[in-house]
């Protein structure tokens, strides 16, 4: 019996030994993580300096409430014990994008906030970027590029080495596409585990693909830029992404929690500025598609206002009349929407309906007495001297 116990102890030791020899590996998302080797330290240093400049950027959205909300969504998605390692910077840039640096700096462009229709979609993108950070994708990518480019250099000295060089270049991009896919799938796990609707990631890509198609058609290129190249793409093809995410979502527990109401409330104060930035891109077809996708058949006062802005900005024949209609519909739904009064007023002035226009501008000033553009609008709303 004793011998048996001894041998059991030995067996336990034998099992325990390799575990003890390999202490739990710290991830960058663990508190107190420090970069390990010279390569990682170098990458962090570079990013720390970039981050210092980012803090001084004029494009930074500093609104503490909005920042707290976005951070909260990340924390719910990936867990409060980990999310603290990431520092989110909201950038006022109207395109759809987010990026992650190896030191924990996460950039989220405001065009993403405009395009996401609910909290689950935002969580999907934040989760994706977080996985890049957690799994050290930038570091792996650097090592991969370094090793393959070194090989490419030597191949450059060999006759016929060029084909192999091209092959290696392709493999750098393939490596990146694999990491993107890995991040997509791991982010879906996070999303599902935190109770969000698992179909959100595929939906956001579906919407983006639609926007790109409409844009390509309007530009008459007929080719969606993202889809044109495959071998040298750093990200998976958008359609593939949408499809594998959709298939993966079906294997997750369904959830109807997409947090759409919370999301709308959180970005409400920023919405007029976000849509204003988008309208100024002068990309009519894509913006119209975007608004249509956000409305999904039920046009809210905000969306009608945005549509009015879009038509007013283009100003082709018939556009101004349409814009006027959209503003009036939006004000029927929500008479407190100050921006809609302002735009309607300006539109009427432009059409020569000065009395009515000035009346609308005064409504704007009544509702928004502390507006930043008050002096200018007051001047426009003033009755002309007789």
């Amino acid at each position, binding site marked *: 019996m004793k011998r048996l116990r001894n041998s059991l102890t030995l067996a336990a030791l034998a099992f325990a030994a390799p575990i003890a020899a390999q202490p739990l590996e710290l991830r960058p998302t663990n508190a107190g993580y420090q*970069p390990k080797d*010279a*390569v990682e*330290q*170098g*990458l*962090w*240093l*570079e990013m720390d300096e970039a981050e*210092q*400049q980012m*803090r*001084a950027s004029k494009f930074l959205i500093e609104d503490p409430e909005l920042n707290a909300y976005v951070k909260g969504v990340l924390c719910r998605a990936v867990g409060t014990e980990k999310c603290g390692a990431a520092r989110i910077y909201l950038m006022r840039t109207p395109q759809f*994008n987010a*990026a992650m640096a190896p030191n924990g700096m996460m*950039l989220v462009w405001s065009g993403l906030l405009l395009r996401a229709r609910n909290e689950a979609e935002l969580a999907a993108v934040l989760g994706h970027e977080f996985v890049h950070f957690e799994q050290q994708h*930038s570091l792996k*990518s*650097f090592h991969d*590029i*370094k090793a393959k*480019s*070194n090989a*490419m*250099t*030597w*191949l*450059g*000295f060999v006759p016929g080495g060029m084909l192999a*060089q091209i092959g290696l*270049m392709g493999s*750098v*991009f393939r490596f*990146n596409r694999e990491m993107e896919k890995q991040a997509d799938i791991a982010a879906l796990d996070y999303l599902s585990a935190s109770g969000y609707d698992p179909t959100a990631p595929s939906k956001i890509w579906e919407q983006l693909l639609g926007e790109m198609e409409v844009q390509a058609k309007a530009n008459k290129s007929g080719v969606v830029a993202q889809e044109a190249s495959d071998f040298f793409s*750093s*990200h998976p093809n958008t359609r593939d992404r949408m499809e594998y995410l959709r298939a993966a979502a079906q294997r997750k527990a369904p959830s109807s929690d997409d947090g759409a109401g919370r999301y709308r409330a959180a970005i409400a104060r920023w919405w007029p500025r976000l849509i204003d930035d988008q309208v100024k891109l002068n990309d009519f077809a894509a913006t119209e598609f975007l608004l249509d996708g956000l409305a999904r058949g039920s046009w809210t006062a905000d969306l009608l206002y945005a549509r009015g802005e879009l038509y007013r900005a283009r100003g082709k024949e018939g556009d101004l009349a349409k814009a006027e209609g959209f503003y009036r519909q939006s004000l029927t739904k929500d008479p407190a929407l100050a921006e809609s009064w302002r735009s309607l007023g300006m539109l009427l002035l432009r059409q020569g309906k000065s009395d009515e226009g000035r009346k609308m501008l005064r409504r704007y000033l009544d509702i928004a007495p502390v507006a930043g553009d008050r002096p200018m609008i007051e001047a426009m709303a003033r009755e002309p001297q007789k």
Partner: protein
Amino acid sequence: MARRLSIGLALATVLAASPILAQAPVATEKYAVREGFAFTPETPPRILVFRPEVKVGEQTTAGIFQNNAEWHAAVTRELSAALVATGGKRGIEMVLHDDRAANSQLLTEHRALFRLVVGTIIRHKLFGKDPLPSKVDSFDWSLGSGVAKIAPAAKADYGLFLLSHDSFESAGRRAAKLVAALMGNGDIAGTHFGYAALIDMKNGDIVWLGVDLKAGGDVRTAEGATQRVEQLLNGFPVRASGKAVAP
């Protein structure tokens, strides 16, 4: 998107570098002084030395730049020390500025502006082939009076900005260069680029700028940093002589 861009840049570097063909630019060092500038002879000028803008690392076999944090700390330390010591030898009081202190946002903005202005000067005045018509006979660039708010407590007459970018060749890079040379190709040496500028802290005027496109000295060491600083301060306005050095 950001990641994609960096990959593209890295690969562009590789393609440009292999096989190694391109010639290094003609090595030159030049400086310019604002017309009529001289330190006041009565009191020794007090110069605020801003944390040097350092980028240092290794050039991989393929020529990709690999940042090195340890070297970065050493270069920052050695260059700052060398500046203070060199200033002392010339009868100039050099004080180190604490970058992470108050008003760092303002400093970050001015650093960005400064990089842009110096880039313009290098391209259109000192080295480029496309001079700006309005700047042919003058050297009157300025960062504006906003610089006065960066560090008023330091009570400095001037501010000194210094930039140093160094990439040291890795063993693999040296081997690849050797092979390229044997095959009759030219080489690309590691980059060693630096500039220093003196700014009037009252009005932001750039009163002196020294640029070295192919700087010497291993800035990771005390001796090398001193050598680099001596080189960069070539043409630095002479104190108390009352005479400005013409460009």
